[in-house]
């Protein structure tokens, strides 16, 4: 979840009429988690579906609504301008087909705001931009650019001074030697031609989605901004721009339009959407009995608008709220406007009769008998290591299932057996008093035609006088008393066990598992100095 760091004072100034306490009490009811608070600084975690909360301007917008200071929709005021245009060339359609943008003038820019804009940009790139793949933003100093612009492609030998650099580099150099180039260069695949935004003096404004030109760097003395968004989907590029435009207007900038044309591109319209909301649905889902005017006022608190249209409410949704898909999202907005703290929990009597799963019940039976025999129940991960399953336990890796790119070396393959883990458990407890008796029931994974998940039951005893008969007798009694099943043991040989002390366990002539004395080599691997007996059976085919 993305986190934004803000100043209480700034937020209070933007919201107006709110105490620090009121603020921290109410932020969670906007869906924001306070990660930490210290003096004037507050770190807030917001949901990735609400990128408008990536700056204090967006959060202030929401808080004003929730606290009733300013409600209803924030209209974008965009002055039509003929001074700015971007022409799109056909050749971009194969690499990054769409560009959109806006002009923002006269806002106050300082280090703090630049920092926030950069954080917002990064969050947008990561979330809705899908790591810049779908769309990416460039923010530029307007006064360094000579309009009109063209959005076109260029070869990889094209040279310009990239952001934060002092000298020219070629596209190839940027992709090979800068961090952003290495991180995002793959988005351009092997295309010979790469997208580029050039101004009328042929200066490089931006090389999307990698890096801006150095010439348009935004500094604290910058007055006016040009924002462009490029992407592979027009609507989503415009969505991202809508967020930025809303934030910029809230930050005090005046917006002016850019005329965009060519190659299926057009100027962004920032259209508000209309969705009809059925008040019955609201009350049915929330378990409330709100009248339509109450519902409308709740919507307004969430910075939306609504008017009654027959029996339904016609809601207006601003362009930046593209997280709203349909009616149900509006129900949630009503709940937020109503205040989650005002919803009282109710408990309706159950119409159904509860039941434990039969498998759980049978496992419980086995567990009870093992506890009766003095066994301690162990729990091991199903995702474990080759070391435990095979190397240390002398077993052969036939068809194990591994996961890709695990962050932990101890968790790379799914267990096909529990017993090796129980032996490993003994090795962690060699200083604890003996006898040690442990058991575990759990899922094992077998790679057959498809993945078979089976339920296994394993037990182990370790002490100076541990012997085969003791182990067999316990297993025999556990299955007899739990399920009235008789076991038979047939001589067998398996590398985990000592030769001559190993048997196949059969129930009604079906082989279900193994029992025996653990091989001394295995015990040596774990420095265990007492004899160990163990068994493991599959419950899936015989019992569950």
């Amino acid at each position, binding site marked *: 979840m993305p986190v934004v760091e803000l100043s209480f004072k700034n937020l209070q100034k933007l919201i107006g009429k709110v105490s620090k306490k009121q603020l921290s009490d109410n932020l969670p009811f906007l*869906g924001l988690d306070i990660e930490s608070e210290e003096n004037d600084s507050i770190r807030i975690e917001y949901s990735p579906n609400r990128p408008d909360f990536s700056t204090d301007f967006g959060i202030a917008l929401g808080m004003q609504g929730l606290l009733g200071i300013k409600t209803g929709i924030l209209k974008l005021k965009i002055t039509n301008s003929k001074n700015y245009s971007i022409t799109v060339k056909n050749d971009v359609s194969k690499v990054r087909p769409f560009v959109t943008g806006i002009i923002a003038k006269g806002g106050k820019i300082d280090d703090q705001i630049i920092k926030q804009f950069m954080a917002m940009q990064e969050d947008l790139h990561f979330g809705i931009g899908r790591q810049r793949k779908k769309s990416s933003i460039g923010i530029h100093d307007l006064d360094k650019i000579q309009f009109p612009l063209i959005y076109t492609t260029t070869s990889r030998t094209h040279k310009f001074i990239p952001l934060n650099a002092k000298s020219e580099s070629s596209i190839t150099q940027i992709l090979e030697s800068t961090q952003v180039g290495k991180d995002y260069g793959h988005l351009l695949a092997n295309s010979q031609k790469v997208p580029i935004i050039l101004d009328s003096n042929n200066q490089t404004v931006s090389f999307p989605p990698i890096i801006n030109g150095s010439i348009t760097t935004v500094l604290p003395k910058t007055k006016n901004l040009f924002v462009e968004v490029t992407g592979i989907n027009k*609507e989503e590029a415009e969505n991202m721009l809508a967020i930025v435009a809303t934030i910029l207007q809230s930050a005090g900038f005046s917006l002016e339009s850019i005329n965009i044309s060519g190659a299926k591109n057009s100027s962004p319209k920032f259209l508000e959407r209309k969705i009809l909301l059925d008040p019955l649905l609201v009350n049915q889902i929330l378990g409330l009995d709100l009248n339509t005017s109450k519902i409308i006022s709740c919507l307004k608190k969430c910075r939306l608008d609504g008017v009654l249209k027959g029996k339904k409410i016609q809601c207006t949704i601003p362009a930046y709220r593209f997280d709203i898909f349909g009616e*149900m999202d509006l129900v949630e907005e009503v709940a937020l406007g109503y205040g989650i703290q005002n919803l009282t929990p109710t*408990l309706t009597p159950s119409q159904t009769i509860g039941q434990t799963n039969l498998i759980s019940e049978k496992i419980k039976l086995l567990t009870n008998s093992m506890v009766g025999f003095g066994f301690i129940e162990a*729990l091991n991960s199903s995702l474990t290591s080759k070391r435990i399953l095979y190397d240390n336990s002398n077993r052969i890796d036939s068809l194990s*299932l591994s996961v890709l790119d695990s962050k932990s070396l101890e968790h790379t393959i*799914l267990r096909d057996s529990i017993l090796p883990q129980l032996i490993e458990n003994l090795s962690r407890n060699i200083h604890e008093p003996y006898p040690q008796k442990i058991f575990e029931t759990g899922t094992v994974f077998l790679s057959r035609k*498809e*993945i078979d998940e089976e339920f296994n039951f394993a037990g182990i005893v370790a002490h100076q006088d541990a012997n085969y008969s003791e182990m067999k007798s316990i297993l025999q009694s556990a299955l007899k008393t739990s399920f009235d099943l008789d076991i038979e043991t047939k001589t067998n040989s398996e590398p985990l066990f000592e030769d001559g002390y190993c048997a196949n366990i059969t129930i009604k002539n079906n082989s279900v598992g193994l029992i025996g004395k653990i091989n001394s080599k295995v015990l040596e691997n774990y420095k265990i100095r007492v004899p160990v007996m163990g068994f493991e059976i599959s419950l899936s085919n015989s019992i569950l």
Partner: protein
Amino acid sequence: MSQVLHEIEKKIISSLKINENQTPEQLEESTKLSSDQIRRGIEWLRLKEIINVNETQKIFYRLGKNGLESLENGLPEKRLLQLLFDGPRNITDLQKELGPVFGPSIGLARKNNWIETNNNEISLKNKPDKIPGEKTIEIIQKEKTSIDVLDKTEIEYLQKRPDFLEEEIEKIKEISLSESSKNIQVSELPVGIDVEAKVPQTFMGRTHPLKDTIDEIREIFVTLGFSEIIGNMTQSSFWNFDALFTPQDHPAREMQDTFYLDGILSKKIATPEQIKKVSASHKNNWKYSWDIRESQKMVLRTHTTCVTIKHLAETKPDEARFFSLGRVFRNEKVSYKHLVEFNQIEGVVIGKDATLRNLMGIQREFYKRIGITKIKFWPTFFPYTEPSLQTMVYNDRLGKWVELFGMGIFRPEVTKPLGITKPVLAWGGGIERIAMLKYGLDDVREFYNNNLDWLRNVPKCQ
């Protein structure tokens, strides 16, 4: 000190009253107790200062190799003298007759002035009255013999000769009643045992503490009218993500968060209709080209919701309550806060009258039953529920609100494509978190360490 004496102790005391000083062996004989019982009894009585244990040394002798030989054939010097009784003998003859003892016997006889040598002949000079050492060898015979019955001068004499005697020092314990206990009347002692004594620890069989919490939660849900369903831990991405409206390019699906199974695709993920409708919901709402190959990738389930939704899609009930409990996986670095594998509880209520307030009511009831009463609800976001909430519970130990279960109503974009028509309330969360609160743990790994000391001893009611 307890006044109660064990039966063993009483028998020892009684015997010592008859025979004042006894060795443990003698006590064994007189009390008919085993050596182990005597050993323990002596130890207990000594600690209680009822008896004195007097440890002394006793010296014993046995015949060595040369001693035994002399016992059989006589001392070498005696054999020499006997040969000379009938007159002088030639040295060479004597050498033949006496063999290896010739040298020592001649030396000793000369030293004692018993014989004299002329040319090559040896003759008797003085016949001794007795030969020193002979008597001692006779007494010792082949037995271990106490120094008490032996002549000390002869012992010293024989000890100087090689391999005649072997000395053994034995430690002897002698047990006697202490002064203060001389008057103990065994018949007047109270009956019973020392009930105040320390006893060894007994280890019993036990269920795993986390399993107990899981069972407790299972029971609560059953009582609230929920039925348990069980599903696979390996799932296709289709059920784990697509069916839950998580777009294929969503960051949560990336490899750094999810465990994908190496090289395994699910062949039959769902019915053609389900695939058609779910993919359409993605295309229409998320606006990207949905790829069936992406949804065939097998993953370790990241939540139990995939089990729930699959079950709902299969059974399409109008009215039902069920829950699933089981392990889920996250590709994270293991730490005191995070495990790659943990347990989750997930519950759903489906019904035409199910509301958000009901959902909150069930949560409140559940928390109440596990002993948590300070709770509140905050809005949050999940890709597959709308509205979505999270429960915050107050942790007294940490002195702050901590997040517990997430909940919400399944989005129409999730339910409609699968033919589910009634509202579905769903909630879920990690069980380890609840168990950590219960057992006062700060490190979640403790549950899977299988540390016997903890498993054997942790109090289950805290």
